[in-house]
């Protein structure tokens, strides 16, 4: 296991896309979050009463994840997808024919790389966002706030692992990205606005992730942060499990 981990670590650190996608995820999430925090502060008086009442400064500072997660998805998909698009997967499987070992090594590599980036992103986005929210800010010591910041980092990590699982399933990066990008960027947000479908859409990973990274849950989401964590985890587990079954069964 250790040699394979070392090998996977060498793989991710020796391609440019790793640095580019992870920096993009950080910059976009923090930058967009700061921008939205700034405008929320200046426009606070124009918000409706109910909006003001349910205003969550923590999740406002995390608004950039809506776009930033796309870079994380690209990173995770490329970890496996680039091997299929270049044909390198055959060299990989010839070197490591034990499929489960290979997948575990890739999961741990993504985890080891994304978790620190996610923690850094979450805390920087939080503190920068709060500093721009002026009088509407919250404090890290307030009830539920620290949990929400960690929730944000966990959501970012789980999204990457979910994408890795989808990457294992669909193999070609174009296919994986063609499914994941519209899903997180368009389909899920649209479905969550449609009546009836909405109740199902609440259990999509991004909806659960929003709950995970919020201090106060919105009234429409019928579960708490702990349940949200397990919903995200279930998506990850299913994606990786299906990915592993297909990896074992299919021709490389």
């Amino acid at each position, binding site marked *: 296991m250790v040699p394979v981990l070392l*090998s996977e670590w060498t*793989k991710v650190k020796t*391609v440019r896309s790793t640095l580019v996608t992870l920096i993009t995820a950080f910059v976009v999430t923090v930058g967009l979050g700061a921008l939205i925090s700034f405008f929320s502060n200046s426009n606070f008086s124009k918000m409706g009463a109910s909006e003001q009442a349910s205003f969550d400064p923590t999740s406002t500072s995390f608004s950039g994840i809506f776009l930033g997660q796309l870079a994380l998805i690209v990173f995770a998909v490329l970890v496996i997808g680039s091997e299929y698009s*270049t044909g390198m997967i*055959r*060299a990989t499987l010839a070197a490591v*024919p034990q499929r489960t070992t290979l997948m575990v090594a890739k999961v741990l590599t993504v985890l080891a790389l994304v978790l620190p980036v996610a923690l850094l992103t979450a805390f920087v986005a939080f503190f920068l966002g709060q500093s721009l929210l002026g009088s509407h800010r919250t404090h890290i010591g307030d009830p539920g706030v620290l949990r929400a910041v960690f929730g944000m980092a966990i959501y970012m990590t789980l999204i990457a692992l979910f994408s890795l699982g989808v990457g294992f399933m669909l193999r070609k990066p174009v296919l994986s990205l063609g499914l994941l990008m519209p899903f997180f960027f368009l389909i899920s947000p649209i479905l969550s606005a449609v009546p009836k479908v909405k109740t199902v859409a609440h259990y999509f990973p991004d909806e659960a992730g929003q709950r995970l990274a919020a201090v106060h849950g919105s009234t429409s989401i019928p579960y708490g942060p702990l349940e949200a964590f397990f919903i995200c985890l279930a998506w990850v587990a299913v994606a990786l499990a299906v990915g592993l079954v297909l990896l074992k*069964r299919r021709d490389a």
Partner: protein
Amino acid sequence: MIEVLELTKRYGDTLAVDRLSFTIPTGVVTGFLGPNGAGKSTTMRMMLDLDRPTAGSVRIDGKHYGQLREPLKYIGALLEAKAVHPGRTAYNHLLWMAQSNRIPTRRVDEVLSLVGLTAVAKKRSGGFSLGMGQRLGIAAALLGDPKILMFDEPVNGLDPEGILWVRNLMKALAAEGRTVFVSSHLMSEMALTADHLIVIGQGRLLADLSMNEFIDQNSHSFVRLRSPQPERLLDLLTANGMSARPDSDGAFEVVDADPARIGDLVAAHGVTLHELSPQRASLEEAFMRMTADSVEYHTGAMPTHGLSGALPADEAAEPPPAPAPASAWGADWRSTKGNKKKES
């Protein structure tokens, strides 16, 4: 030792590999020969556990490939050139492979110098030529200092210098006692390197024999005769129990004949000869004859003897086969096939 047992691979309705069984002898170069689409690459991928066999199995020293710990130390394989991430350097590509099988890092520098890529080791492999990519693939195969090496069409796309290098490398590896298994669709290439031959066509085993046996069985000799008095020559040969067949440019061929005897005979009867030359049929033709029935895609009828212009437009009227070394696939296949019908 590698044993392939009843190996079968089915894609939908097509049988790519059909109950293939053979054993690869140790310490020699074994040529794995077959026309394009014969199932060579599929077989090799199944040997490395990359593709799942529909039935049958492959045993490497009695083990399944997936059971090998650190398999690069057992088998090194070059399956396709440039199966590398274009953004990664040659050094880093070999580094991750070495790490995955606990191969010492200094081995990376060793194989890079062995294949002559030291100067570009820190360059991204995306900019490599096909030949450099092939060398990198060979470096990867040699990385674990394995006893068994597998090369799938290693000379494809190489320049003459590269081809010579690969040829000598394979011989050198076998001389060190390693088992070398190399696929090709070119008999001429195999004739220069292989000690043993495994020939397949449409996924089925056609031959499994030593190179010497193959040459003895297939490279028959014939005598080419050219005369301004063809009728007299033919009568003379027939009268002496030899059958001659005309070739495409007006000469005659007598199979398995003694050139000295023919020379004496025509001299005694005063027949003028413009040519009397002993010839050997090429191994390439023997290979094509062997695989003729199993070629997946035949080329259309083309006037292959363009210069002589002797080929009639009507295919059925094509003259009996001329083992002309310059003839192309399709024409040869058709003529040999036609010939077989006549013989039977």
